[in-house]
């Protein structure tokens, strides 16, 4: 713990801020901006405490919404509704921002060999991790401050506004620290961010299942995201949970710092293993290579979605019970459509989550084409007898097959556990697997947009992530904020039937598929006619 091991911290900090001078502000401004829009719109739509309490009671009775966003705390207050409605940002978007920032400035740099270049100048071995953590924590704190100021500006109470800002900042800091640990354990940036996102996924799942069954469930408290939700930011604020989250964030950061002093540069803590000296028989073309490159990710995602399905399926039958036990909610319960409609709505919401996750996987897989190109690995393949289109299609094929498997696994998991509980596995499988696969047309559109960018505007492939986040925001906030229909129509996910339970109409499906095919074909054509390389 000599100060010398921190030499160069200032320089690294400035470098990280210089590199992130556009990226991080976009995250922060977008999220704070969303909070402001939601706050203003909700204030207009529900101006009185009575109206707000009514809304809170209705949405609080809906287990699908609790699974997605948690319970409402501070039912009659504008802040309570805003914080509830925006919890997908504090629980998902902010942690993602933090994870990407930490990995970008640690493992990714190390893997690219740039850290070595810096390390040969005057730089302490602990400095890079600390710089990455400071930047990410700083971004989370700025974001939290922005949220607090926004809530104060719309006239919310001071304590609640402060707590809400703290909740946003803490979820970012927590997962920055998680990512810092992950980045020490594996030698590969993609594995590091994958592991951190896996932790985030499990945390979200635990919180979500707990909240869906019972807002007082201990399951929720087993998840760090549960601590954030249970801070009850506009209710009776529980500051000790904020303290717990901060403590864990600091502990994890210290752990990562200790780990970084115990390993060599560019090495992970898990030792390298030898592999096959010769390629297996199936590893003989672009498709084999694409499968070899993506198979671990496909496996994890399929297992992950199966587990997600099992969990949601396991609790689905319980989601109506709470409502039935609470007499004053009976009316709301009937208004939603009774037990079966409630369960269907719950499943439809979880299928939407699966859809966004699958889209994320497929975009990541398709954009690998661009990553292969900028890392010059595409040259290795394209200088052999492999044509560009089959090369591109090989990654697309793995993306599509993996996506179909993921959705099917989600449906199968849900059908299995829900079927066991209601004593009708066959019927539930037959309902829920197709319901999950119903997300496919929208997911394909997003992936095809990624392919179009790879072919036509390779320097702007990141836009597809922006589009996915925009679709997520539209889907989550759009109907609630009563946005214009044409705006909602831009999201392919909002053209899907709500399954199970909803009606499937052919036209939107055909239209979405046509758009996907068109975008994909345009991308492939573009790829054939442009230079391959970094430019």
């Amino acid at each position: 713990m000599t100060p010398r091991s921190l030499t160069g911290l200032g320089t690294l900090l400035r470098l990280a801020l210089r590199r992130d001078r556009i990226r991080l502000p976009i995250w922060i401004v977008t999220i704070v901006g969303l909070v402001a829009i939601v706050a203003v719109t909700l204030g207009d739509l529900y101006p009185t405490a009575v109206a707000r309490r009514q809304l809170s009671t209705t949405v609080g009775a809906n287990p699908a919404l609790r699974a997605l966003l948690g319970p409402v705390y501070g039912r009659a207050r504008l802040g309570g509704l805003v914080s509830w409605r925006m919890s997908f940002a504090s629980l998902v978007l902010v942690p993602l921002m933090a994870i990407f920032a930490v990995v970008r400035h640690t493992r990714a740099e190390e893997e690219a060999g740039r850290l070595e270049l810096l390390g040969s100048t005057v730089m302490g071995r602990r400095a890079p991790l600390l710089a990455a953590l400071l930047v990410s924590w700083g971004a989370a704190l700025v974001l939290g401050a922005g949220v607090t100021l926004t809530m104060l500006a719309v006239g919310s109470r001071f304590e609640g506004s402060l707590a809400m800002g703290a909740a946003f900042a803490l979820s970012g800091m927590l997962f920055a620290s998680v990512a810092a640990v992950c980045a020490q354990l594996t030698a590969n940036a993609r594995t590091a961010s994958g592991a951190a996102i896996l932790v985030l996924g499990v945390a979200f799942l635990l919180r979500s299942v707990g909240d869906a069954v019972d807002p007082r469930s201990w399951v929720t408290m087993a998840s760090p995201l549960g601590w954030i939700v249970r801070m009850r930011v506009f209710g009776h604020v529980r500051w000790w949970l904020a303290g717990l989250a901060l403590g864990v964030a600091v502990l994890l950061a210290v752990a990562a710092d200790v780990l970084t002093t115990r390993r060599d540069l560019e090495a992970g803590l898990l030792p390298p293993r030898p592999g096959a000296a010769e390629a297996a028989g199936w590893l003989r073309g672009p498709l084999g290579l694409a499968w070899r490159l993506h198979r671990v990710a496909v496996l994890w995602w399929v297992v992950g979605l199966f587990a997600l399905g099992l969990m949601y399926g396991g609790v689905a039958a319980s989601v109506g019970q709470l409502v039935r036990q609470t007499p004053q909610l009976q009316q709301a319960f009937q208004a939603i459509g009774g037990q079966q409609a409630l369960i269907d709505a719950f499943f439809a919401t979880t299928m939407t989550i699966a859809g966004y996750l699958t889209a994320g996987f497929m975009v990541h897989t398709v954009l690998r084409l661009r990553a292969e190109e900028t890392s010059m690995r595409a040259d290795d393949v394209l200088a052999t007898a492999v044509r560009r289109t089959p090369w591109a299609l090989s990654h697309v094929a793995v993306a599509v097959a993996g996506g179909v498997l993921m959705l099917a696994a989600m449906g199968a998991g849900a059908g299995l556990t829900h079927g066991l509980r209601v004593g009708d596995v066959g019927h539930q499988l037959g309902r829920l697997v197709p319901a999950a696969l119903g997300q496919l047309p929208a997911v394909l559109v997003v992936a095809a947009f990624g392919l179009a960018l790879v072919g036509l505007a390779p320097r702007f492939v990141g836009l597809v992530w922006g589009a996915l986040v925009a679709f997520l925001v539209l889907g989550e906030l759009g109907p609630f904020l009563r946005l214009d229909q044409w705006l909602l129509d831009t999201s392919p996910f909002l053209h899907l039937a709500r399954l199970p339970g909803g009606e499937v109409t052919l036209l939107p499906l055909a239209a979405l598929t046509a758009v996907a095919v068109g975008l994909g074909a345009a991308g492939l054509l573009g790829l054939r006619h442009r230079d391959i390389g970094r430019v």
Partner: protein
Amino acid sequence: MGDAISVAGLVKRYGKLRALDGLDLEVPTGEVHGLLGPNGAGKTTLLRVLLGLLRADDGHVEVLGSDPWRQATRIHRRLAYVPGEVMLWPNLTGGEVIDLLGRMRGSLETRRHYDLIARFDLDPAKKTRDYSKGNRQKVALIAALASDVELLLLDEPTAGLDPLMEAVFRDCIAEERSRGRTVLLSSHLLGEVEALCDRVSIVRHGVVVERGTLAELRHLTRTAVDAEVERDPAAVTGLPGLHDLEVVGHRVRCEVDTDALDGLMRVLAELGIRTLVSRPPTLQELFLRHYEAGGDGDGDGRPAVGR
């Protein structure tokens, strides 16, 4: 025996930058051709145009009788490429990459590939992320050399190899030559080019500024002479073809044009040589002159020799 590579007036622009600016190059079948030039001269861009990865903005390009942009894969079956900066998939082993690239090219000679792995002393069971730069280079070299192809495009293939492995590489290229394969070798290691290449093209600012056989290019080079003589060496100062002459006491140091060497030696002999060190002509000088010549000029404006 036609030309394996034929390039005329090739232009490749990146925005305003003209990476290749009217480049001409002909490599006859069976020749080992050296492509020399400083960093950023356009060597890698040229190779990537020859592979059909980049589209030429202007000019005529033919590789193995076909247009590489239109018929890339047809040509690729008959050539192998080693990039300058070998990037491999970190979670594949070296052995897997060698097999995979060979299979995708459609022509892996299995016996030869085992032989090469042994000669280059590569551990094929290691993941490529655990390889050093030199070992990654070996993977790409073995994959290329083990392929049954007519043309090898090698972009600074020995950067990162140790001297022992450089020697193995030179042996391999000599074998390729005897098997009648054409090799285009980009490098800035003069020793390597001198040892391996039949002819050399020097590229600078996207054009070929000198070309010819080594013998032809040596005419343009100077021999460094460092001599100590018995008598006062004042007589040396008036001689033609001397450069950077330094006379300190009885010691003479200078560089001399190849065609003026004979005259200098006669004068020195008459003065009574006590010691004489002369560095044989290398491409170094010529090369350095092109490297150092800043601005737009092509060295000292001598005409290109050879063709």
